[in-house]
């Protein structure tokens, strides 16, 4: 039955996925661009900048974790490689952070590709263990770095900054060009640009031939390989691709806060990002972004009950991983296509015994 009147829903459903992405992206972009004109308080802008940084990381992580289905926990390590490379090059060679950020991103690509190569023969939980190991080794090595690399007066500074982290390596220089008031705004738009470029990059990969290869390997490894998809090549590729913008976010983080330290490798940070990805929807192109927004809002709400913050975050993660595996994006899609009954349907679906 074709009806003459095409509803908005049908219209959207008939769109090619890439065109739908353009509209969704523009929707978020307009809000993000307009936000400082509505409210330009420092606290809001700083929060949203942090949101942009988290979203940039999670979007790239989703490529490995959700799209390619490789359970890597080394994302924050790659982030720190980018941040530390940029910070150390700027500190020891006096180069501009703009330049070293790019170098940091390429370093992140390199390290990420090596991690990808190291995990080629591993599956599932073993990948998680190895990548977690990489992150823990990195943190322990930085924390326990106590050899003096250079002195300033009598104060001893370590090569990696040790547990204090690195600082005084400069920043993006917005404050000198634009003054104190506008500099935060400039950083806001720079972070937004980073997120937009990263998202476009990921969308092109997901909707393009690489995306099909990654998903084919995720869903049926044997079949994909028998069709001639080279697993070694694509696994290294997905790690390398996701490394670039992750490293760049690390460098931006270092430039924005003018410091970077081993606390970024703490486990709760990883959990926060993991929760964002799970809540948004694993493997969905817009999942990480929605998850970030949602979790930042929830987190802001839970700040009043600071001591319950982690309890709430953990509980929400468990709730989503058990009941809403497709995340918020899956929920919205379900309601969009089948109406609000979808919620009850999916709950009923869960109570039904399923074939395994």
């Amino acid at each position, binding site marked *: 039955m074709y009806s003459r009147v095409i509803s908005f829903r049908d219209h959207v459903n008939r769109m090619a996925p890439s065109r739908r992405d353009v509209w969704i992206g523009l929707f978020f972009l307009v809000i993000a661009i307009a936000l400082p004109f509505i409210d330009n308080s420092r606290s809001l802008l700083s929060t949203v900048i942090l949101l942009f940084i988290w979203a940039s990381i999670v979007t790239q992580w989703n490529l490995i974790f959700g799209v390619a289905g490789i*359970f890597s926990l080394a994302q924050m390590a790659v982030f720190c490689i980018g941040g530390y490379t940029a910070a150390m090059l700027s500190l020891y060679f006096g180069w501009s952070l703009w330049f070293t950020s790019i170098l940091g991103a390429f370093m992140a690509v390199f390290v990420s590709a090596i991690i990808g190569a*190291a995990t080629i*023969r*591993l*599956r*599932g*939980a*073993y990948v*998680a*263990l*190895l990548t*977690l*190991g*990489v992150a*823990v*080794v990195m943190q*322990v*090595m930085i924390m*326990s770095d*106590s050899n003096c690399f250079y002195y300033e007066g009598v104060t001893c500074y370590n090569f990696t900054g040790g547990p204090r982290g690195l600082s005084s390596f400069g920043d993006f220089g917005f404050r000198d060009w634009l003054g104190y008031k506008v500099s935060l705004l400039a950083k806001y738009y720079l972070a937004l640009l980073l997120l937009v470029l990263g998202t476009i990059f990921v969308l092109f990969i997901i909707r393009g031939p690489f995306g099909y290869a990654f998903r084919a390997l995720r869903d049926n490894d044997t079949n994909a390989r028998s069709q001639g998809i080279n697993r070694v090549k694509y696994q290294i590729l997905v790690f390398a691709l996701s490394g670039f913008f992750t490293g760049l976010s690390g460098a931006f983080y270092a430039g924005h806060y003018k410091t970077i330290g081993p606390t970024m490798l703490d*486990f*709760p940070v990883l*959990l926060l990002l*993991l*929760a964002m990805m*799970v809540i948004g929807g694993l493997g969905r192109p817009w999942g990480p972004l929605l998850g970030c927004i949602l979790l930042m809002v929830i987190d802001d709400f839970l700040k009043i009950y600071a*001591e*319950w*913050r*982690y*309890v709430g*975050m*953990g*509980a*929400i*993660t*468990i709730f989503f*991983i*058990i*009941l809403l*595996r497709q995340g918020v994006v899956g929920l919205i899609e379900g309601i969009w296509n089948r109406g609000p009954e979808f919620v009850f349907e999916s709950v009923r679906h*869960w109570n039904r015994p*399923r074939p*395994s």
Partner: protein
Amino acid sequence: MESFLQIVFSGLTLGAMYALSAVGLTLLWGVVGMLNMSQGVMLAIGGYASYSAITYLGLPWPFGLPAAILGGFVTGVVFYYVIVRWMYRSPTFEVGIIIATVGAAIVLESLMIRIFSGYPLDQPFSLPGGFRIGGILLPYQTLVNLFIAGLMTVGLGWVLRRTRFGRAIRATAQHRDAAQLLGVPVAKIYLQVMVMAGIIAAISGVMLTASVANLSPYVGTNPMLKAFFICAIAGLGNIPAAVGASLVLALLEGAIQYSVGGSYGFPAMLALAILVLIWRPYGLFGERTVERS
């Protein structure tokens, strides 16, 4: 000679700690295919259960262990009904359960901080003193821990290999659907295994805090992380190999700490784990299992 004894004794103390943490972890992996990121918190729960029974309820010290067993029992039941029950049929269980147990760990850890505060406490259930060999102290508690780790290994091995219950567990681990068709109550097996893992973790937690570590909500985190890598080297799911690897690696860690420097022990172990995993993806003694589809 003295330094050699020092390395061996501190290695044994550490090794016993790792072995205790590794047993429950590798049991859950081998049977349920579950990498339990809450292991560290489950260890802490055992320690706190014993502490509360003795300090708050005023029970005499031998009641510490039964209290911990009760705590572990409750933990296992709660984990089954809140998390595992809903997930074990999912085709992406292996990854999903890691995320879920990470979430559970954070929840329980913050709850313990709320209840007991984060300050380190002394475990009242412990055996003070020790032997003096060549001027170096070998604490009794280390021997107790080694004995308990050995007992758990042998006991679990016996249960899994020789009893009807153990056969049902192994059948479920090998092929869940076939086991169910042959009349194994699969859901009940999962519950029982979770309870077993909870109790083992709780007992280990008491022993752990009775030894070198102080009781705090984070007490299990470090042993858990090390146990992960020990199990990965030994091959997840192989209990005797995990216990053996704990001792060997702890001795190695002690030797590296002594000869190279205190902070290089853990990184060296991790680097070894990473290399072993690249060389042998299923660990040194792990079995290459056929994936369920």
